[in-house]
């Protein structure tokens, strides 16, 4: 029997997806915890001072964001492969939504580092006053924080499709899929309310984000610890 042992087993794929999912959540939290305190709302000077005096912290926040995005690419790929037996087309649609979400992150990473270019006291920028440069760098950071909810629309739709496929599958607990689909819906609602009703959006955030994180965290944890029911997966794949 010729059999390729270069292929990952379904269980290894599940572990990779779950582990990367948790890496994504944790590094995303680190990025937020490190980066958010540096931004002083509506005070460009204080924000700029924070960034310049705590530059390594600022860079750490960037790297954490980047790792979060990179590991989510892995989650998208391995989850696609895992759920392909349930529906080839829908799992591929989900993967493409995830890809689009991370690609939007690509734009946000570049904007994220812009303040460092503006605040380093380069000679060519002396044609601007210090407060103008500080204002520009706060504007860049504000732009960067808006990129997150844009990506979230795509991640939310991806989570809905993954949740549906998990619920339909025979090799993962149905409840995990339902929770993830609810979480994905929350992402979409939070993001859209953030754009359509900027005064209301932030009030939804503390209630809806935890729901979304519960769905992602539980499925990620299950995949990491329990993997999938290999026998059922193989039956569905054949």
């Amino acid at each position, binding site marked *: 029997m010729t059999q390729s042992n270069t292929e990952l087993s379904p*269980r290894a794929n599940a572990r990779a997806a779950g582990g990367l999912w948790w890496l994504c959540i944790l590094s995303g939290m680190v990025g937020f915890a490190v980066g958010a305190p540096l931004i002083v709302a509506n005070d460009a000077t204080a924000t700029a001072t924070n960034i310049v005096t705590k530059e390594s912290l600022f860079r750490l926040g960037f790297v954490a964001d980047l790792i979060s995005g990179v590991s989510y690419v892995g989650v998208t*790929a391995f989850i*696609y492969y895992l759920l392909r037996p349930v529906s080839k087309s829908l799992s591929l649609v989900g993967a493409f939504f995830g890809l689009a979400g991370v690609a939007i992150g690509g734009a946000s990473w570049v904007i994220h580092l812009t303040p460092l270019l503006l605040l380093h006291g380069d000679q060519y920028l002396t044609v601007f006053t210090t407060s103008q440069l500080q204002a520009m760098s706060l504007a860049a950071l504000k732009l960067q924080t808006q990129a997150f909810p844009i990506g979230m629309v795509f991640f939310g739709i991806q989570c809905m499709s993954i949740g549906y496929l998990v619920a339909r599958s025979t090799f993962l607990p149905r409840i995990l899929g339902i929770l993830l689909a609810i979480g994905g819906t929350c992402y979409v609602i939070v993001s859209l309310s953030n754009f359509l009703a900027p005064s209301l959006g932030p009030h939804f955030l503390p209630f809806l984000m935890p729901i979304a994180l519960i769905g992602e965290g539980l499925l990620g944890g299950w995949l990491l610890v329990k993997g999938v029911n290999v026998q059922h997966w193989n039956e569905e794949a054949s």
Partner: protein
Amino acid sequence: MTHKAKEWSPKARARLAGAFEALEGFTSTFGQVNILGKLLVVGNAAATAANILKHETLFRLGFASSLLGVVFHLAWAFLFYQLLRPVNRSVSFCALLVILVGCTIQALTALLYLAPLLVLTAGSSLSALTEQQLQALAYLFLKLNGLAMDTNLVFFGLWCVLTGYLIFRSTFMPRILGVLLAIDGLGWMTFMSPPLGHYLFPIIAVACGLAEIPLQLWLLIFGVNNERWRAQAEGIQEASSDHADAADAEAPKRVAVRLPLFL
């Protein structure tokens, strides 16, 4: 069967991948390094702006060349995926998604490449800013273009590591090419911190030359071994139709013949 004959052989696709990779390297470098290096005067926004306006056609050519690089990049990204899919379907798909994100960031550099021209030729519409300020903004956009290029390198580096692994596990390409490519990829990933990446660049450039030039030459000259590629592709088909779980069941012996390390 007629429709089967239309499908390109793995060897032909490997050669095409090598050709597109070479074209991408040439067009990207020409736009981002050669032309930009010629027009950009380090630390001098006024001289840079004067160069761009004086050699506008050359500057536009650099932009177009850089954008064309993204097109070739997408082409070889898909060909590499097809080529390495028989080794491991989920890892090769992961590598494809990683490089696609890299390509979108590379496309973003094209936008930042063009921005200086918009700022410098805006005429009276941007007269709220002084000429020196507009020149500084144009220079800033070029620096952002470089920053986006650095971010793109992180993804390219990760793709190299994953692809290096896949080549290493393949039966139809020399393992040494995979090892070198993975080392090269780790180097590019240091651009996660751009200052570190630029500091280590001389070493990374050597690793890049040692890994990417032999890989391209190998693909262009030898392509891949058709029979071995098909054998590995069939192995994967059977493995999935067997309901076998390679890791959980007893690990089966590798049947396919492996190329020696240095062939």
